[in-house]
């Protein structure tokens, strides 16, 4: 999604206003001239100024161009990557790290055009390797689930 400079400038101005609006409820500490709101307001003001400068420039091109990356099949693939990560976050506490990660890798390989059998093998293999490195060797408390319970 490519915006032209004027639209980008407009967004920057709105963002600046939002950043400043967000500081309105901040409490002040007695005796401190430069409190929690000072820097965010400075940033908000700078965002607005940058936005104005962007808008003032001669802008050419369409207001909004949708890149090839987000149209048609390619767009579906992009969405599937974001969805896959979201689903991983939601499902891994239940299924556990190994199962969820194996599924994520395998499904995305198929989406990217790989063969299902090879995809499943890669998924399971890599999930086990990552589990070995992170959970066993580095003691990272990865989501615990069905397969982990069987292994311990």
């Amino acid at each position, binding site marked *: 999604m490519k915006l032209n400079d004027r639209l980008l400038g407009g967004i920057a101005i709105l963002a600046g206003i939002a950043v400043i609006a967000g500081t309105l409820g901040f409490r*002040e500490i007695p005796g401190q001239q430069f409190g929690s709101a000072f820097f965010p307001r400075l940033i908000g003001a700078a965002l607005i100024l940058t936005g104005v400068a962007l808008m003032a420039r001669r802008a050419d091109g369409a207001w909004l161009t949708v890149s090839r990356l987000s149209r048609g099949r390619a767009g579906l693939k992009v969405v599937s990557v974001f969805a896959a990560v979201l689903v991983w976050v939601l499902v891994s506490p239940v299924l556990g790290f190994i199962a969820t*990660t194996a599924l994520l890798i395998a499904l995305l390989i198929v989406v990217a055009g790989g063969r299902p059998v090879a995809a499943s093998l890669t998924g399971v293999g890599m999930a086990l390797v990552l589990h070995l490195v992170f959970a066993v060797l580095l003691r990272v408390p990865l989501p615990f689930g069905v397969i982990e319970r069987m292994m311990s």
Partner: protein
Amino acid sequence: MSVLLEALALVLQPGVIGTVLVASLIGITIGAIPGLTAVMGVALLIPITFFMDPVPAIAAIAALAAMAIFAGDVPGTLLRIPGTPASAAYVEDGYAMTRAGRPERALGLSMVSACIGGTIGVLLLMLAAPLLARFATNFSSVEYFWLAILGLSCAAVISSGSALKGILSVLFGLWVAMIGIDTVAGQPRYTFGSVELMGGVSFIPAMIGMFALPEVLRNITAQAQERHPPVMGPIFPGLGTTLWRRRANVLRGGLTGSLIGALPGAGADIAAWVAYAVAKRRSKTPEKFGQGHDEGIVEAGAANNGALSSAWVPTLVFGIPGDSITAIVIGVLYLKGLEPGPIIFIRTPELVYAIFLAFLLANLLLIPFGWAIIKASRQLLRVPSAYFTPVVLACCIVGSFAINNTAFGVLTMLAFGLVGWFFEENGIPLAPAILGIVLGGVLEFNFVTSMLISQGDVMVFFSRPVAILLAVAVALAWTVPIVRALRARRTARS
């Protein structure tokens, strides 16, 4: 001299050498895995060091850290996943070389410059630790404020393309740094009621998201440029000539890194960015930076490891940790009965020098171990993209998870992935945003504390000699390019 010999005898023992080798192996593996940091590696080593003698224990930490920091360049160069904010400074150049089919050149350069930079740092550590420490303790919040400004000014130098868009990127990064509990007043900012956000945005997941996720998207939609023949040439031929041509960069980078690294808390991050900016400023071909040019890689790569070594200066001399790795080291020093302080140089000089020698050894080992990891990583390039990309995504997920041991890190990565993608589509550079995230907190905290100390008197920023020096440097960083541009315009006109 006898002290040095005694130290050599302490280091050249099979037990010590063996420990260093094993620690190096762990370090290079940890560093090469996206999302795993040198700090995590060192923290994991601590329980093991309890059972070791002082010299091998410290040597193991030094070796692990040096290896991990260099190895962080491997995923950065091959996959565009920088291992640390420090290696984010030159990730674009390294990755551009990979896409041009010359990954071995980028990795070879950063390997050798890391080795030389690290060695410069160790030599400074050996020769001038007390002196450097004295310099470092002159820094109060006022000087740190200027240092952060100087670091941010680098964003103006390094960002390519539209200056306005570069500013937009910095501002975004600075705003992200405001998220979480304000450390001075205890005010939650932009947390939207989330406890996780109260802790702020950790920059490793943010960085992985911004750089790696757009790459994953491009690969999975098969819109990335056609993969280059998966060959990786020999590493060493040609390296010598390039490095000799860039010798000034290597030396300057090593020195810059060592000096900035000696400042507690500033560390490798600012060092690498400043070095990169200096390289670009002094270059005859600044327009090539970010397109796969060698000067930035060499200078910032050397600065990176130089800073890692000199972070030990304030640690050993005053017990003030130079970075998060040395913060852990202090604990180990005490446990081993090696109380930091100048006394350590008088009471047990042979131990201190043994530590320095072990450090030197670790830096020299960078070459064989680095060579091995580069060779091993070439296999990665042979895997077809359809299989490779989902595995990279899985690595990004685990890495983001492991930083704080929470799935929130994964969501952070995802959100910043969207931002990174949007930025790239609109020609907004990513590097300034990372710099903003890293420096935003430092800048605000030191500004506010300075104002609290001086009770609102702005002149405090010009009240100390080092502060004035830094202020002048900042002024130069801004005026020199403007003057130069004006002069160029005038000559062009006439």
